[in-house]
């Protein structure tokens, strides 16, 4: 979309992670700003965004004792934010057919905020997955800021994989489950 082009063009380099945990095509996107802050979004190829799905529910309660909505950070150093590893779940999204998808953190870092806007208006996730429909904002550790996206795919690599998927009749070669 136009807005992301301008934004990205200035300061964000998108990297993608493909097929998380070996699950077919559940691609996500990590947009990293030059100040190291990362925005986690769905990639265009994610199943949720295909086939005219509608969203039944978005749940940030990922376990009995942990809800991402309770995440509170304070001060410049963002104390109190939940620390996430790559495979930490951010939320679970259920579509109308009843399929439930888990959205993952993809990177190591401190959770700053999750998008409450999509709770109120789930259509944002479908209409603008790369901007207003973002999932979460994560702050990597300063010393890891350059390496935190190392295992992820660049834009070209991601598009290669996409085109291999569509051109082959079978499922495309699975990339190994990420360290993300």
């Amino acid at each position, binding site marked *: *979309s*136009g*807005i992301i082009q*301008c*934004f990205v063009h200035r*300061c964000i380099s998108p990297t993608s992670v493909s097929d998380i945990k070996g699950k077919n095509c559940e691609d996500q996107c990590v947009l990293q*700003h030059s*100040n*190291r*802050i990362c*925005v986690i979004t769905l990639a265009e190829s994610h199943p949720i965004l295909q086939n005219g799905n509608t969203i039944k529910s978005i749940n940030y309660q990922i376990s009995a004792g942990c809800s991402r909505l309770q995440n509170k*950070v*304070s*001060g*410049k150093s*963002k104390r109190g934010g939940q620390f996430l590893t790559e495979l930490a779940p951010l939320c679970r999204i259920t579509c109308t057919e009843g399929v439930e998808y888990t959205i993952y953190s993809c990177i190591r870092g401190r959770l*700053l*905020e999750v*998008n409450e*806007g999509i709770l109120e208006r789930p259509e*944002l996730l479908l209409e*603008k997955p790369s*901007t*207003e429909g*973002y999932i979460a*904002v994560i*702050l990597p550790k300063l010393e890891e800021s350059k390496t935190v996206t190392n295992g992820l795919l660049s834009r070209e690599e991601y598009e290669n994989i996409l085109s291999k998927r569509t051109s082959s009749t079978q499922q495309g070669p699975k990339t190994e489950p990420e360290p993300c």
Partner: protein
Amino acid sequence: MMLPLKENDRPIVKKLLEAGCCARCVLRFCFLEVQSAYRQPYEDTAKELLAFINDEETNVTKDSAVQDQLTKDPPSKKIKLDTAKTDVQAEGDSALVPTVTEEGGARLVKSDVCVVCLGVLQEFCDEAYATKVCFFPFHYYNLYLFYSFSPLLCYVQFIITTLSYLKISKGDWLHYDQGIQYQSKVWTHLLIQGRPCCFAFLDCSEKSLILWLNSFEGAHAPNFVLLPFLLFFFRKFPCPPTRPASKCVAQDVQCLHVSVFVAGRYNKFSRTLPQTPWVIDGERRMESSVEELIAAPLLSSFRAKGFNFSSSGREDVDVRTLGNGRPFALELLNPHRARFNKAEIRQLQETINQSSDKIRVRDLQIVNAMGHMKEGEEDKTKSYSALIWTQKAIDKDDITFLEETKELKLAQKTPLRVLHRRPLTVRERVIHTMSTRFLDAHHFHLVLRTQAGTYIKEFVHGDFGRTKPNLCDLLKTDTDILELDVESVDVDWPPPVPE
């Protein structure tokens, strides 16, 4: 003048003089704060002290030791001025050959160097010495000489004199309710009215003694636990102390001028110039900066060692500052020249403006302090103009409604681009007015007058929807900001300087 000494001071004065204190140190330990007492010539003070002691009705003291101490002239000052170096050295005492034994025993010849200040308050306070200091390449109109004693000297002298007090009056403690302030971060008051005091060591190393003074209510004598320390003291530092063989010598003189503040307003015409130097990991990412361009000619004219730059807000690298400009103030550190008349300041302003076409400075002036740039920052307003891009094609009528939009309240979460160094919070800001100028199907000019602290870029592109409402919502299309200029910073300070 009559020294304002009290009856109670008499034994103290006598004891201190016997111990070898100079007249001015005696005044210090009597807590005399009257400046004129110290300003008068040393000999006058000395004579008055003698008279004060001799005034005692019951004890007419003609203690020869005391008399000698006070009536000897200060040694003649042969101050050698070595023009090759900046040291000022004083010749040794010409009148004396003191010989003092370690135990403080047989004093063959008395030195008249004060045991406490080592001559600092005897000679280095005189006009003649100050004149020598004035030799250094500073321009100035008033000169203050401040003396601070090294920590070791402070504590030692404190102990000596206080122990002297103890010896004077065993049961009858002192009645002073003030404190002596030494130039020391740790240390302030010492003696407390009417209460017996104890001493305790905290730290004793070769370089310094740090002491705590405790006051015990009701205690009458030093705690037995502390006696060993006191004995140690008496052994290391006899009381009265041994006379110094010679007075101290000035090894170096350093002069420091108070900061001078220069204020003005600056314009920034470049979209590739940061306000402050842009350095990441020790590497400069962008050449030069507003503050360096302004400071360079000032540093050299004022002959200052460094500066601190401060301004009423900041703009991004890619944002121009137009109109009257943004107020700033520059603190020049240790300037060797501080006075400039109006014509010279105008010339300095012209030099800055000639040095680069990226900035311009106006209303340059010397001010007393940093001024009220930052005060009431949220009350102020600022005006901006922006070049807007729209994804959807627009025509003139699509944007006219913005002109009717007044006092638009925004809720802005901390923008992602500054979130790494600012706390995450929501800021409520107001856009007071807007006006537009249509350019083409995907571009128009937007002029805004907003509350200070409003993030304009985020209002335009929405920052992932974290600023609400934003221009994308209002225009129902993706928008982005291509250029931004600051049109005015509505702060009244510094006062304008007529051209």
